[in-house]
């Protein structure tokens, strides 16, 4: 009961925040009912996927302050588990998704135990290294299709297939990931007020003090890492059935890991709305820049140049992200 009340309790936010959040949710719910292009739909689904990844990253990276740049490996584990289960043994999505999450959590414990002995830069680079090792292994592993990856042939199934999540229209995927999004948001709301959430924030502020207060720092980090992993892995499973064609290069590359961290950091790491804001700004920006500048104008790479410049400007001048700007503005008004 206590937990449910905590989950639904948003009363520590100012009223304007909640109003805006509600308006955005209503908009997101109604979006498919309005006329829209297929491209806009795909962008919105990407937005949900990446804001969920960002929420997962936010637990360890935002609240805990451990810069993890290896989240793509769990996208890969989740996506490949679902794909292999579906193709080899015809196991439906709703069974393979928790299996994938369990596998990811096991892997996160195996590498998390040694990883969290490192700090700062060393930790960040080590997470990259583990992620790249896994990617290299998947690229030579014949069972999972090596570098060519795996693909679902939709005509073999009978869409709409609610068990295997194979649909013809994107609108089904939209509402499923929307439900995931709401659950994720509620979970994060519970998490930030949970015991572990407070422990993490004290670890972020000062690890020595946290230890002297009797917090098992190492174990708290590993637990949070597992939570973040589960988030990313579950959404990775969804990504696999949505995209229908996965290969190591676009599920597990370093760019994905960095993009995940970037969502949370650009929006504001360590705040509930941060990843959502970050994904809401970055994903449309990225896909429309690519559409307008990269594909149409024929200028190779110019979209990523602009994108990189935005990252540089944000990280140099507003390291606390867009949410940091809002908070600064509020503080000034209060004075």
């Amino acid at each position: 009961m206590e937990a449910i009340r905590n989950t639904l309790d948003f009363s520590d936010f100012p009223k304007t925040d909640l109003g805006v959040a509600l308006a955005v949710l209503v908009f997101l719910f109604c979006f498919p009912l309005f006329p829209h292009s297929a491209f806009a739909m795909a962008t919105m689904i990407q937005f949900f996927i990446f804001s969920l990844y960002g929420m997962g990253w936010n637990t360890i990276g935002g609240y805990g302050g451990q810069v993890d740049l290896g989240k793509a490996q769990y996208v890969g584990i989740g996506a490949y588990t679902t794909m292999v289960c579906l193709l080899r043994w015809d196991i439906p999505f709703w069974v393979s998704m928790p299996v994938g999450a369990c596998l990811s959590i096991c892997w996160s414990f195996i590498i998390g135990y040694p990883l969290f002995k490192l700090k700062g830069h060393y930790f960040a680079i080590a997470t990259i290294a583990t992620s790249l090792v896994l990617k290299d292994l998947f690229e030579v592993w014949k069972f999972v299709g090596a570098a060519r990856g795996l693909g679902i042939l939709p005509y073999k199934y009978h869409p709409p297939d609610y068990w295997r999540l194979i649909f013809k229209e994107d609108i089904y995927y939209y509402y499923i990931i929307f439900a995931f999004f709401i659950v994720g948001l509620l979970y994060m709301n519970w998490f930030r007020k949970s015991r572990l959430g407070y422990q993490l924030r004290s670890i972020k502020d000062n690890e020595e003090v946290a230890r002297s207060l009797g917090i098992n720092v190492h174990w708290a980090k590993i637990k949070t890492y597992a939570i973040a992993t589960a988030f990313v892995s579950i959404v990775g499973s969804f990504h696999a059935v949505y995209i229908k064609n996965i290969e190591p290069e676009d599920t597990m590359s370093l760019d994905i890991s960095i993009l995940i961290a970037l969502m949370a950091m650009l929006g504001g790491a360590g705040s509930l709305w941060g990843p959502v804001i970050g994904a809401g700004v970055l994903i449309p920006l990225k896909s429309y820049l690519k559409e307008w500048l990269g594909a149409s104008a024929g200028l190779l790479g110019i979209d990523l140049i602009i994108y990189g410049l935005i990252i540089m400007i944000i990280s140099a001048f507003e390291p606390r992200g867009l949410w940091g700007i809002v908070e600064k503005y509020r503080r000034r008004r209060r004075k």
Partner: protein
Amino acid sequence: MDLLFASIVSGVLIGMVLALVALGLTIIFGVMDIVNFAHGEFLMVGMYTGLLTAQATGMDPLFTLPVAAAVGFALGIICYAGFIKFLLRGPMISQLLGTFGLMLVLRNLALLFFGSEDRALHHGLLVGKSFDVGMGIILSATKLATAVLAVLSFGAVWLLMNRTRIGKALTATALNRQGARYMGIPTERMNMLAWGIGGATVTIAGALIVNFWSVTPYVGLIFTMIAFTVVALGGFGSVPGAFFAGLVVGLIMEIPGFWDFIQLFFGIDWMADVPMISLKYTWIYVSYFVIMLISPRGLFGWKQ
């Protein structure tokens, strides 16, 4: 046996170049505690500089080093003054992501200007020549010359760091920024200089590597990871550490060669089925991980 010697020699030769690649990263990290994700992209800039200068002027690619050094020095200073200076005030995560943004920009600028195709050098005094030393070792002339020049450049930087006033000021800044400022060392200018030297060494390495490695805009990432591994093994901030670690990492890169040697020498059949050559770089990531766990300070490191 021949395969073993050939692998060792090739590992040592490439290791000398890798040491030069990592030198810039370790200097920058030592002086201002910032990890530069764009390091591999600096190397790519050096590779393109070497290649294009050689093609435009008809010079031998081995003599384009001064041009590459000048470009790298300028690039490092511009990056520091225009961007990194502001980044240093922020937390660590924004430093990591900021240099990642720099990497994206440099990589895609190269893509925009040079296109995505592989480019390689086909002409030059030494390209394609090799000589047999005996015991099955065939030295390619470019690799040998590259390794020698890399060692010379490394020695020059070592002399600069240890035997000149500027080098001592740099070391002092690295050891204790506050103290160095009290002694009248302009630490801000020292940061800029560190970026200049870092950029120059890595572009020299790039101009050397282009002699035997084809260049694309995407070549940077693997070299960034190699440089991280070398620096981690040698110890963040240590110049002699970078040299020995470079040799070790060069040998690690030859693990597929050793694998073939063991497989042929002892006649182990299952080993032939493992696609070791496509796992060439995996060993670098694995060794980074293991090194960090065993000794986070590396071999010669003094920064924790």
